[in-house]
């Protein structure tokens, strides 16, 4: 049985990336309507869903802190997340460890002193696992907390880095993690670039440590740019949805769900209008009240 080369002579890794390429990231905040804040993030094939509730009444009296909010993190893996179906128990040591890393990372960042004696619950679920659990949990938590409007001093971005054949590599996937490559996870604050988490379980010699940690910081900044863009777009869409434009001919056109316009049968549905306002493109059905023409394309 031939062993896959983790880094071939042409400088490509098992999934075709170069040593310093991060995996493709796509992220989206506000995905759950019932949570105070939520986010879904995919880094390569690793997928994570985060939900934040709070600040709210603590469930256990023992968890009440008199001068700040208690942050409680719960991490779970879906049974279909790994290549073999496995039911994970709630108190699996590995999951509790990841949860405690996330909690430690966010404790200095969230303004917990504004909400004494309350609890902020963060629930993370990994839907598909391909390496990089801690980093994706931290990134998903950041987006969900910003979505929930919980005041924070900055936001946190995390990335992993390792070494293969003396070459520092960025963003390890599952195959690289399971090999004998050392792995370091670094989480930094986006603006000040201060490190809030530095974690490693493997052996890494101190001479390469500097290069690996620096590379991880660079990876964090790249991830930060993607999350930043997604969060700003989300706020823009949010405030765009809340504004309603009133045209001079007094027919209001604003975004309505299609179900709603079907229910209001007494209104005359106008033409479907595609327009761009403030750079946000949207399609909607204009509700006319006697006006036939609503020009514009």
């Amino acid at each position, binding site marked *: 049985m031939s062993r896959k080369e983790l880094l071939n002579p042409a400088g490509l890794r098992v999934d075709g990336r170069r040593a310093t390429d991060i995996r493709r990231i796509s992220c989206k905040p506000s995905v759950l309507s019932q949570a*105070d804040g939520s986010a879904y993030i995919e880094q390569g094939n690793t997928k994570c869903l985060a939900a934040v509730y709070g600040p709210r009444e603590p469930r256990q009296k023992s968890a009440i802190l008199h001068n700040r909010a208690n942050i409680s993190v719960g991490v779970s893996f879906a049974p279909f997340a790994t290549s073999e179906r496995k039911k994970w128990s709630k108190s699996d040591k590995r999951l509790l460890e990841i949860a405690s890393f996330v909690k430690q990372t966010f404790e200095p960042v969230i303004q917990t002193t504004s*909400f004494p004696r309350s609890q902020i619950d963060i629930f993370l679920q990994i839907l598909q696992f391909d390496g990089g659990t801690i980093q994706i949990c931290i990134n998903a938590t950041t987006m969900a907390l910003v979505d*929930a409007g919980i005041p924070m001093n900055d936001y946190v971005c995390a990335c992993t880095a390792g070494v293969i054949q003396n070459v520092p590599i960025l963003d390890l996937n599952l195959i690289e993690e399971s090999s004998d490559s050392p792995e370091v996870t670094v989480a930094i604050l986006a*603006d000040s670039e201060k490190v809030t988490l530095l974690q490693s379980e493997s052996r890494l010699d101190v001479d390469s440590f500097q290069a690996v940690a620096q590379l991880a910081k660079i990876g964090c900044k790249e991830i930060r740019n993607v999350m930043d863009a997604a969060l700003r777009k989300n706020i823009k869409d*949010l405030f765009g949805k809340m504004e309603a434009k009133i045209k001079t001919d007094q027919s*209001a056109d604003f975004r309505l769900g299609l179900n709603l316009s079907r*229910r209001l049968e007494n209104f005359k549905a106008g033409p479907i209008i595609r327009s761009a306002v403030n750079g946000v493109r949207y399609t909607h059905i204009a509700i006319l009240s006697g006006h036939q023409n609503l020009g514009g394309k």
Partner: protein
Amino acid sequence: MSSYVLPGDSIPLNLILLPGEPDPKLILGPGLIRQDEDSAMSTKAGIPHSNETERKWFVESNQRRYVPSAGEDVLGIITAKTSEYYRVDIGAAHAAVLDSLAFEGVTRRSKPNLKVGTLIYAQISEANKDIDAELTCINPATNRADGYGVLDKGYIYMIKCSLGLCRRLRNEEHPIWTRLRQKYKFEVIVAVNGRICLKSNSARATIETIEIANAIKEHDV
């Protein structure tokens, strides 16, 4: 000023000292903390607003959880009852406290006997991050009910939405209201804690109020 800020972004304050003013006083509203002499840092995601002549800055953001603040009108549901007060859920981190005697024209003998699950409209009389918020069903300015109190006449329907939407819906001229006004007759209370209460008088009108509620919810984010 950039149009959107995220937690950690700096906002320049551009403080111009007036003659004879050693220490400029400024008011930082929700979502901002002082970073250094000339800038504030945003702690929430949203749109920054400022009034430079009055030296007020704040970040307009949206969230679903309410943070109690004195003087605001809230809709709450009674969750527990003791001899002295009721515990009311207002969608904040903790339940608020409503004194049993904080109603208009009430004495120790004629206390209203409210059940758990009752919907009330009250004003927050005291709010502090270290203690539970206190509610009152009397308008402190006039010492009369003025609309506060128990909502139990007719058919009541309460929906929850985000705080940003509620703030905008408090404007009577919002396009949603002008649209719905043309078709339906209804009574609505928009509270700042993310709850809207619709009232109707007949069973038939209840169906219409549910339509209105769904219209509002779909407009939410």
